[in-house]
């Protein structure tokens, strides 16, 4: 569904992404992980067209999107940003309806189909009961769901989630990721999400892409990618990886040693 090939992005002379190639299938969740500055957020910004790519191709459903106008592109790719600094005075319904922008004219007059999809998106995200509430009154987790609803209303085959669990507590983290998982399989959307938390990536993603310094270090099933070898190389700090007691997915434990393999306080 989403195919990225040889994507290269640079800010001036500084190359941030070097020939990234990956693809996400309908109904699949791909997590992109990697250290700070590896280019995770840049990937989302480049794919969504906010920053230009120096080279490479981005195809959605076989269609090359880099040459499309912002309006046309927004019919193929929807972004779920982090829920920070959302305009608080709009209602949940109004905020979700904004997702219909790529299908509305300059006047932004919504029709029956726009209201229908907005309602559908609210139901899918368990927000139907909160439709008339102001976004500013909601918790961080609920606001993140509103942004997911907005992206669903945008009716695109691909969703791009930018660290959707940042600033959320444990319950809301699993809430939003479970929802994303369910939406991927129920609506057959292809989901690419940047995740900082390797344990959550291992638990919720079908596949994990590990970025390091702008290049793809490894991509594949969580068990194959989130190994102590890969992680030690990418994060430059030793870790222990154990299987999840219930699912067998990789759990990453800090090892306590620094990059030179030394403890600061513990013997042996």
């Amino acid at each position, binding site marked *: 569904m989403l195919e990225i090939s040889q994507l290269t992005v640079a800010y001036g002379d500084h190359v941030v992404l070097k020939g990234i190639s990956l693809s996400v299938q309908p109904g699949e969740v791909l997590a992109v992980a990697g250290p700070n500055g590896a280019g995770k957020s840049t990937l989302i*910004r480049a794919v969504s067209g*906010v920053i230009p790519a120096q080279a490479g191709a981005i195809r959605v459903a076989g269609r090359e999107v880099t040459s499309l106008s*912002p309006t046309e592109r927004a019919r193929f790719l929807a972004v779920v940003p982090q829920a920070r*600094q959302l*305009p608080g005075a709009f209602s949940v319904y109004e905020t979700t309806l904004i997702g219909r922008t790529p299908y509305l004219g300059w006047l932004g007059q919504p029709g029956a189909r726009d209201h229908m999809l907005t309602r559908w998106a*609210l139901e899918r995200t368990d927000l*139907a009961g909160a439709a008339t509430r102001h976004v500013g009154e909601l918790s961080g987790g609920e606001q993140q769901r509103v942004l997911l609803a907005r992206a669903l209303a*945008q009716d695109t085959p691909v969703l791009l989630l930018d660290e959707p669990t940042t600033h959320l507590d444990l319950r809301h983290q699993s809430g939003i990721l479970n929802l994303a998982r369910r939406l991927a399989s129920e609506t057959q959307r292809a989901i690419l999400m940047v995740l900082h938390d390797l344990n959550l990536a291992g638990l919720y993603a079908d596949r994990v892409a590990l970025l390091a310094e702008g290049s793809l270090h490894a991509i594949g099933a969580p068990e194959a990618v989130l190994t102590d070898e890969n992680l030690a190389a990418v994060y430059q700090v030793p870790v222990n990886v154990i299987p999840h007691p219930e699912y067998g997915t990789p759990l990453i434990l800090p090892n306590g040693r620094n990059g030179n393999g030394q403890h600061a306080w513990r013997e042996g």
Partner: protein
Amino acid sequence: MTPTLPHSESGLLEMKAARQHSRLTPYLVNALALALAFTLSVALGPVFIPPATLGRILFSALGGLAVNPAWPETFHTIVFAIRLPHAALVVLTGAALGGSGAAYQGLFRNPLADPYLIGVASGAGLGAVLAMAIRWPTTTLGMYGVPVAAFCGALLTILLVYQVARVNHALPTTTLILAGVAFSSFATALTSFLMMRSSDELRRATAWLLGGSILSGWEPVLVVSPYVLVGLGVLVASGHALNVLQYGEEQAQQLGLHVERAKAVLILAASLTTAAAVAFSGIIGFIGLIVPHTVRILWGPDYKRLVPLSTLGGASALLIADLLARALLAPQVLPVGIVTALAGAPFFLWVLRKSRSQFFA
């Protein structure tokens, strides 16, 4: 991908939303206020014209009926040659300031933004004072020397600020505001310098800078109308784009808005509108700041309603301020900018205090 049909319970939701969107009350309230303020503006003055008589004068003029006029001949002249054109220009100016103020607050996502944020006022002021200082030959432009100079000053400022702030094909908002503020300081300093040099014109220039030169007659109305009407039309039609911009430029583009194009359209429309209005009445502060905020507190943050309601509200507010300016020290007429600041600031503080909710979206 394909959504299922909605459950029946959510039909209520849509009805609610539809009702919320088609609410006409705010428009009616504002239209009534405007009609009332307009009637008062034409009726009140050194010669009082009772509203009933006023209605008959207008009716007979509109219908062209040969009714036997039961009012003095002078009433007709006062209404058609003095009061109506004056009120019309005040309406256009107030509407321009209210509408473009709302658009600028939305575009810059800044509660402090007003129509003068990127230098329209200081550019116009410099143009006007320059024209007064060099005693622009009145033979060529007649009474329009100052307005034309002010309009050119405003347009040149916007053009300059726009060019300076542009990076490749983008127009970073912060750069635009900073360039506007820097250029404003420069133009204001130059204006002050010119005023110091030509002390005999000082009073006139000061009055202009305080909005004390609303011109009379129909001609200014006809000259200003196209700019203000077209500009406001564009702004009123841009409510949705302003709503989308509230999520920030990056999200706005990801939501499918052509952000750079939308910004260019909004800046051009708001600046032209303001420049034309300011050229014929001087710099009137506070209307463009207060009216959109008051509308937002009363009727919510949706720019599809905020822009047209601020346009109506701006017109009413300036009509009332203008009435006060004419009445407070009658027969002397105060610069209306003094009234908008004197009455507007406390009123706004009161509104701000009364609204307990967070009002800026």
